[in-house]
């Protein structure tokens, strides 16, 4: 009975006398939320205005008869799932069959019998409850999936995310020329001591949010952050014909932005451009990542530079010098490459 009390019913019948009768029967069964319509047209209007759990529909009505109302309900995508119980004559088997064919859930024969009314409504409420449960379960799955998808595009470059969604995996692939950028905070350890963890995290968050803004502006891809280190690329999933220049410009802007976020923040940036391999690691928790010499060199450059500058190899410098200002930092030992000349860029020309 509590189920019944929660259900809202619409009774469509052209006989006022039947309204009273049905109301009394439904009251006795605990159905409190009952509305009445005198004809088919009114019923269809009421259905547009509010939601009903069950419709009790008389077959024989002037103007719009029960068949026509039933057909309209079943043709309306918003209401076709509302169960309809037809009210019919006892011997009216042909009409009943027709209604079932048109999608009615059940029928009630006149004169009404309380036991049957109770059973029919009860079964209908129960069936609707199960159906709704199934539906909300499906909806839940759908929203969770949507959330996961959204999360995916936050974690992964969007073209990679789409491939992952579509095929369930991402092929690792090699790129000929990608610009890599590493940016780390000078004296982060010092900064941390004497500050609460919360303060540190909030500060980092503000800074990295700013960095993301800048990379997005340059159409670059954020790869990841590792502690106080921020890592991004140019020309990986978004085409870029001068990825080195892009990462240099981006690096300069980041270096300039950091003190604006907080006077304590100073960053140094290392860049490099060249071939690399990109792909996804992990199965449950995806992590997009890049590998190769280009990545290692860029990371080393970041470690070698001065605060507020963008550091790169001399070979890289030759590529962009026409656009930039900079100075030689000297030679540096790089694993697998021996001694290399390193240049720091301090601004654009």
């Amino acid at each position, binding site marked *: 009975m509590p189920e019944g009390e929660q259900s809202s019913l619409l009774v469509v019948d052209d006989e006022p006398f039947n309204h009273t009768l049905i109301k009394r029967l439904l009251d006795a069964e605990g159905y409190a939320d009952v509305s009445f319509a005198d004809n088919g047209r009114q019923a269809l209007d009421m259905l547009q205005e509010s939601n009903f759990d069950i419709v009790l529909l008389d077959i024989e009505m002037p103007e719009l008869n029960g068949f026509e109302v039933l057909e309209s309900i079943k043709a309306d995508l918003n209401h076709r799932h509302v169960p309809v119980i037809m009210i019919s004559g*006892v011997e009216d088997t042909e009409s009943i069959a027709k209604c079932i064919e048109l999608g009615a859930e059940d029928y009630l*024969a006149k004169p009404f019998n309380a036991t049957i009314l109770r059973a029919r409504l009860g079964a209908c409420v129960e069936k609707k409850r199960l159906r709704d449960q199934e539906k909300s379960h499906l909806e839940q799955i759908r929203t969770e999936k949507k959330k996961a998808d959204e999360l995916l595009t936050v974690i992964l470059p969007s073209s990679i995310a789409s491939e992952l969604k579509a095929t369930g995996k991402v092929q690792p692939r090699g790129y000929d020329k990608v610009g890599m950028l590493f940016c780390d905070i000078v004296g982060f350890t010092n900064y941390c001591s004497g500050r609460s963890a919360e303060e540190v995290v909030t500060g980092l968050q503000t800074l990295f949010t700013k960095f993301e803004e800048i990379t997005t502006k340059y159409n670059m891809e954020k790869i990841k952050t590792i502690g106080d280190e921020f890592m991004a690329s140019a020309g990986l999933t978004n085409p870029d014909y001068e990825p080195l220049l892009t990462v240099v410009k981006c690096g300069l802007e980041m270096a300039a932005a950091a003190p604006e976020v907080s006077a304590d923040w100073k960053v140094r940036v290392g860049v490099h451009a060249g071939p690399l391999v990109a792909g996804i690691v992990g199965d449950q928790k995806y992590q997009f990542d890049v590998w190769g010499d280009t990545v290692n060199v860029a990371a080393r450059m970041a470690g070698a530079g001065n605060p507020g500058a963008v550091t790169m190899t001399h070979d890289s410098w030759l590529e962009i010098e026409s656009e930039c200002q900079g100075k030689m930092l000297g030679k540096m030992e790089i694993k697998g490459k021996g001694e290399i000349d390193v240049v720091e860029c301090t601004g654009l020309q």
Partner: protein
Amino acid sequence: MSSNVRAYNKASLFLLLLFTFVFSAGNLHADYKWNLPPGLPEPVIPQSNPMSVAKVELGRHLFYYKKLSLNGKMACATCHRQARAFTDGRVTAQGTTGEIHPRNTPSLGNVAYQPVLTWAQPKLTRLEEQLLIPLLGTQPVELGMAGKKKIIVRRLKRDPAYHSMFQAAFGDNKAVSLENMAKALASFQRRLITANSAYDREDLSLAAERGAKLFFGERLNCFRCHPAPFFTDSLTHVGLGFKEIAFHNTGLYNLAGKGAYPPKNTGLHAHTGQPEDMGRFRTPSLRNVAVTAPYMHDGSVPTLAQVIDIYAAGGRGPGRSNPHKSVFVSGFNLTSIEKSDLIAFLTSLTDETFLTDPRFSDPFTNPLK
């Protein structure tokens, strides 16, 4: 009765000659994809007439081809209408010359699973043979082409569209022949599979669910002769050990109190002469039954409600005491609500997609592609 037998014998004599050289053609299209709904077994296909897409499509064009009748006004589809699950809505069929057939036109849905064809012909097992009866039969005249076989072939040859369809289906220049026509028509009819009703989709209304309980229950016993999934106890399919063939007397008549049925419609008895076979007919499938009225072998019952009344009474009038009546037709009590529930269930066996599937429709008014 004797005239019926003679018609049947004439046809079978002709067939004997025909099939000695007909069913030896090569296997042109070995892998036919049925795409059957889940759970449905594959129909048995004669080795001499494997299925192919081209044959089915040619068969469809023949099924709706009015020039297969003497006066060019009637096709198979005139009596077997898709919207009525390939029945005609008439009490009994009427041929192209106006002659009345003694029997009601049966549905062709799932005919591929029938081990024996028509209302009661125990020896008629192949669709390739059956269609020669309406085409060439004279007892009664249906399409009226008796003695006009050459005309049929000539008409088809003269039509370039048919000529090329025959070639596509049978792959040689002499493809247009009565034999190949029979094969293509049979292939099309085997394709007429219906299994997408609310019952199949497990989407029964509450009323129909109650009706199903009655139908499959011991009180009414309907399922004994109309078992799921084909709703008939006449059945053959791939993997079935032996063909299930059954004929029953459901107590519709009892002429002169001697158990007899009307002379032109004595059922199995017309073919066996056995007294106990009087009034025994093959159980019709109940799929799409809501659109195939009127009912029974002679169309003598107009509505489903009346069919149920007859079963509830254990037969019709004096037929109730027909000595050959099946023990499963012994009557039962049914409230009017239960009757409506049972009808709601029978109505839920209607497969709307089957009744409107463009692949089975008239190619002249509804060409594919």
